[in-house]
């Protein structure tokens, strides 16, 4: 297949079974991925979302040639991950979450220099690129500190710098923010749109809904090794949530409003909360019904400070998908 298509990553019927043997040698098989089909266009930020054990890391490991599929195929920029692993490795960077995978006894700079040498980057370029990337992830000051003395967030930033050493057009990030405090996680997230802006294709796995919603232009939800839904975040929310949400800010609060609204057809739930001098009503409506007019009627147009109808959150959609 040509490397000239607009598809960066393609999985066809991708399956992976892990086998292990117990003490007496009996084999146990565990299906981690079954028949996964994915297509990621070049330049996309693609989110692979799913609960723990869904098969996200397995997918990333297959795509970065660390693991062979049991059946099915995966291609990166047209190169088969099994038979053209060399080309795949040259064109991808992988950033695995967690604290392992870096040399603790040597400095951040030395870690970078080691992986540069490993990847055949000539020494002069290696030096320049190391300095550039460490600066980019804010580690210049700690370049000469042994990595075992790094904080969790610093380690993760070094992981990112290492992943960018070869300036790969395709990046795989496996739960890059796991175990990182909110501010550190936000800093890490900022790199994602920046890298996409440089034209890189990014596959990001996460189990944080908000992260996927915020960063990705397409999301695939996987559950127990199978694709459960795929689409733009907004699309997934609309398609998979059986609810739509109307939020009303009422300037003259009334206690009975809740009960009156509940009487309307298609209203499933009403929550009321005080917002300063106002009352905020969050009305869950069966999707497909437009109740804005009826709500206005019940509350009284003159009492409404603001009325918006919004999509449900990704979390609401996600929970619906996984329940099935």
């Amino acid at each position, binding site marked *: 297949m040509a490397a000239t298509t607009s598809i960066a990553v393609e999985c066809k019927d991708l399956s992976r079974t892990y086998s292990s043997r117990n003490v007496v040698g009996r084999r146990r098989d565990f299906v981690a991925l079954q028949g996964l089909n994915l297509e990621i266009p070049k330049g996309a930020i693609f989110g692979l979302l799913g609960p723990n054990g869904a098969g996200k890391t397995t997918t990333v490991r297959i795509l970065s040639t660390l693991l062979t599929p049991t059946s099915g195929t995966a291609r990166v920029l047209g190169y088969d991950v099994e038979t053209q692993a060399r080309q795949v490795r040259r064109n991808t960077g992988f950033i*695995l979450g967690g604290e392992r995978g870096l040399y603790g006894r040597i400095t951040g700079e030395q870690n970078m220099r080691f992986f540069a040498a490993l990847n*055949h980057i000539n020494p002069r370029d290696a030096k320049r690129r190391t300095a550039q990337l460490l600066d980019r992830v804010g580690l210049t000051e700690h370049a000469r500190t042994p990595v075992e003395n790094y904080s969790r967030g610093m380690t993760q930033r070094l992981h990112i710098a*290492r992943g960018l050493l070869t300036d790969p057009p395709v990046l795989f990030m496996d739960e890059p923010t796991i175990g990182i405090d909110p501010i550190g996680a936000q800093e890490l997230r900022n790199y994602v749109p920046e890298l996409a802006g440089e034209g890189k294709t990014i596959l990001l796995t996460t189990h944080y809904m908000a992260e996927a919603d915020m960063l990705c232009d397409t999301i695939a939800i996987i559950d127990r090794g199978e694709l459960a839904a795929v689409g733009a975040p907004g699309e997934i929310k609309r398609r998979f949530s059986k609810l739509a949400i109307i939020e009303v800010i009422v300037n003259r609060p009334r206690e009975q409003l809740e009960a009156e609204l509940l009487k309307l057809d298609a209203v499933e739930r009403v929550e009321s909360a005080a917002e300063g001098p106002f009352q905020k009503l969050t009305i869950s409506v069966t999707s497909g019904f437009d109740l804005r007019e009826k709500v206005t009627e019940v509350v009284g147009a003159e009492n409404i400070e603001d009325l918006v109808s919004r999509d449900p959150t990704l979390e609401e959609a996600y929970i619906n998908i996984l329940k099935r």
Partner: protein
Amino acid sequence: MTNFFVQSYLTYRALFFWLNWPAYTGNVFLVPVLYITMLMLTGRFAGSPLDSDYYTKGMAAYSTPFILIWGITQCNYYERVIGTLAHVLGSSGNRWLIYWSRGTMHFPNGMFTVTSSLLFAWVFIGLDFSTTNWPTLIASILLIGFSCTSFALCVGVFAIVVRDWLVISAAASGLLILFTGVVVPVDELPFHLGYLGDVLPLTHGVAAFREAFLGASPGAVGSHLLWELAVGICYGLLGYLCFRLVEVDARRRGAYETSIL
């Protein structure tokens, strides 16, 4: 080529956990001295028919594989355990260079340890160098260094597989102590076990090493030296083959990142 040395140096700095003063001096300089003294004394008091110099020379030569085997296996083990193996093998790095770069910096240790052992034997035990043929001695030391680095790299692959370095190192260095003629002369081993020595490193190297003290020229022990070289080359190739097979197997089983294979 620069990249090969950068790789060799950094992988050594990152993974060799005897790289601190107490551990380094202990294992490179003190352990051989203890071995030499211990065997020389037990040999003498157990009424061995062998000259006590036999043990001194044997153990001095043995110091080289000792540090190489224990050093290289611990690095491989550690690489697996800290999870960097996945990143090394997931890179487009040249496998042949990766494999040999794991031994480069250990080779000098093998040279230091035998040199200091001989120095110790000369100063404190009075080992006689008066008839020594130096070119033969140096050639045998270098070849032992080469063959034992190859052997240690080969054995080291199994430290990745079984995720342990103590058992592997103990077994490998035990084989060398028993069957290469450093303590027990090869032709006195029972049940043709002497032939085992022919496929192990050190056996022919140490034979040439002993001859060097008696003044044998390199030409006179040429067959020993060539044999040692050949053994080194064989282990080098065998080890590389095993390394590639382990890589293929790890990809198939999914054992790159997990600490179990």
